[in-house]
């Protein structure tokens, strides 16, 4: 095994942090204690965790409607995430944005927004800024398979390739865009990663549930980008274990989840956390007690994050117009 214990433990812990906090939202959503629309990323943790392992604080990330993992993996504070979802003044967006608008500029997380494809060109702009300033910051644009339908992606790839911008287009292909299977959105001979080819952009298709594969390929891509070789396109095959929005669209009555049970079960077996756990145990990096200790630590952190949110105030009505202009 070419990795050391601490490094792998770090990846594991970050994935567990994301999963545990995601799952902690399930009951409050069903109880309607959480009101804002929440797009859980359970099952997709390996992508941002594997990528962020090669990013520095100064590198840029732009996210989507499903960005809890992007935010946490880039160093975002868990308490501020929970508080944002509860609409508190202490949330990372001061309760003005909710789950779909996560930001942490100090850690390079420049924002997330639910307009599909809407942040791709913004990440392009961050890459442009980095090129103009010559400071080798790499820009990550996260988007889903659904966003490949938007023209903005194609336009951004062309410009990135033309200017050799340090951007990585990261497509989290979880096979669905809300209620729609990918086969209803794209001709099935039309692989997503191939979209990069006519733009002469280096591209990869990677098992997005294997955090080590994610890490290895994205490390290579990030270095390539950082050295000024131009953009990279990465497609990660993954799957959301929860509904499109909230824990289970069918329980909630939104009825957008038409995914076959067998398919869901198949992907549950490819759970990225269980897979890394197996590696950790089989290589005797960790024993079960140590693994449990990580989970315990994380549970404590999540508990603290909820307490932080619970103890925080809602924004005050007198501040309704605060933040319209600086």
């Amino acid at each position: 095994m070419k990795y050391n214990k601490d490094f792998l433990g770090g990846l594991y812990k970050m994935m567990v942090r994301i999963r545990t906090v995601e799952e902690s939202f399930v009951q409050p959503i069903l109880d309607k204690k959480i009101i804002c629309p929440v797009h859980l990323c359970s099952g997709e943790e390996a992508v941002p965790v594997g990528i962020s392992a090669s990013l520095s604080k100064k590198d840029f990330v732009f996210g989507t409607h499903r960005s809890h993992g992007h935010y946490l993996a880039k160093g975002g504070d868990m308490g501020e995430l929970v508080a944002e979802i509860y609409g508190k003044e202490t949330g990372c967006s001061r309760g003005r944005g909710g789950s779909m608008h996560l930001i942490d500029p100090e850690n390079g997380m420049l924002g997330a927004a639910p307009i599909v494809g809407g942040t791709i060109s913004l990440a392009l702009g961050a890459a442009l800024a980095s090129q103009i300033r010559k400071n080798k910051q790499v820009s990550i644009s996260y988007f889903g398979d659904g966003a490949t339908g938007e023209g903005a992606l194609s336009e951004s790839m062309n410009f990135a390739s033309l200017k050799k911008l340090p951007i990585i287009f990261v497509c989290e292909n979880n096979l669905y865009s809300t209620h729609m299977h990918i086969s209803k959105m794209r001709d099935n001979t039309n692989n997503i990663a191939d979209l990069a080819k006519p733009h002469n952009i280096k591209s990869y298709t990677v098992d997005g549930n294997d955090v080590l594969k994610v890490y290895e390929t994205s490390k290579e891509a990030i270095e390539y980008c950082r050295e000024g070789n131009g953009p990279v396109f990465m497609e990660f095959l993954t799957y959301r274990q929860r509904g499109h929005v909230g824990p289970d669209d069918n329980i909630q009555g939104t009825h957008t989840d038409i995914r076959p049970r067998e398919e869901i079960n198949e992907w549950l077996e490819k759970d990225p956390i269980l897979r890394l756990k197996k590696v950790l145990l089989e290589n005797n990096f960790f024993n079960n007690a140590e693994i449990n200790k990580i989970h315990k630590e994380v549970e404590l952190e999540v508990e603290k994050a909820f307490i932080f949110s619970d103890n925080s105030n809602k924004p005050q009505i007198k501040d309704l117009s605060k933040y319209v202009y600086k």
Partner: protein
Amino acid sequence: MSINNRKLTYSLAVNEAIKQMMEIDESVFVIGQGVESPWYVGNTCTGLIEEFGEERVIDTPVSENAITGSAVGAAIAGMKPIVVHPRVDFMLYAFDPIINQAANWYYMNGGRASVPLVIWPIVNRGGEQAAQHSQALHSLFAHIPGLKVIAPSTAYDVKGLLISAIKDPNPVVFIDDRWIYGQESNVPNEIYEIPFGKGTIRNEGNDITLVSFSYMAVEAQKATDELKNKGINVEFIDIRTIKPLDEDIILNSVKKTGKLVIADGSWRTGSFAAEIAAIVAQKAFKYLKAPIERVTLPDIPAPASSELEKAYYINSDNIIEAIKKVVNYK
């Protein structure tokens, strides 16, 4: 029209209008994201795929610009498309085909080809959805020459206006609002049209004129009913279509009452409420006995936190407050 006591919800009236027009006119088709998913379009498209097939009821990839452009192009080529956007916010990707192309096409081509198209953005807000899932942009569309804009508030009106929109040879923006979907009224079974530019007086009164449309008309009705109990007789006008606008119905009422409140569910600056105020200030100046009041959203993006949402969104209470202010003006 036959006397009819059948009650239908607003959203099912939309459904029926589309269904009946698709039955009688093969050039009508529906395209847009989520037409097969109630999560996106409520029950407005229920049964359409089953009846007309996927060729005429087309759920699409997430490609608002191309899909809207394709609807515009199909209209130019002789079809009568209805292009739906489950949120007007998503439709902002499609401003080029709507504003540059569809709205201008007939004029800039000297009347050689028109664009018989219904553009159907749905407003859906509240529930802490924040700034990109809450916008109401009817005033923006009203600003564009070449577009017609309808903004119904009842089941009866939406069916008749939507049928008129489908039959209209021009691009018509159908302002739809999820908050109205459950409203019920009597709706005739058959196909009927409501002409554009004809408002309706929902309540006759002498004390003040209240003008509204779309969801705010529901709140305006509530305000009117409450004020009746308090001895204020509101003349409430639902204009139903923003463009063309029934100026006469508003002016005639203001000539009688001398007082005007306009309730518009979007932001204040550049709002359609401002347009109505300007028209009345110009054409009924000498009849006005008090300054005109507008009930609008503040010029602020929609917040997430429900604490702020409560202060942000407007309802019948805000209308009542404004009416009292104008009525008591000295």
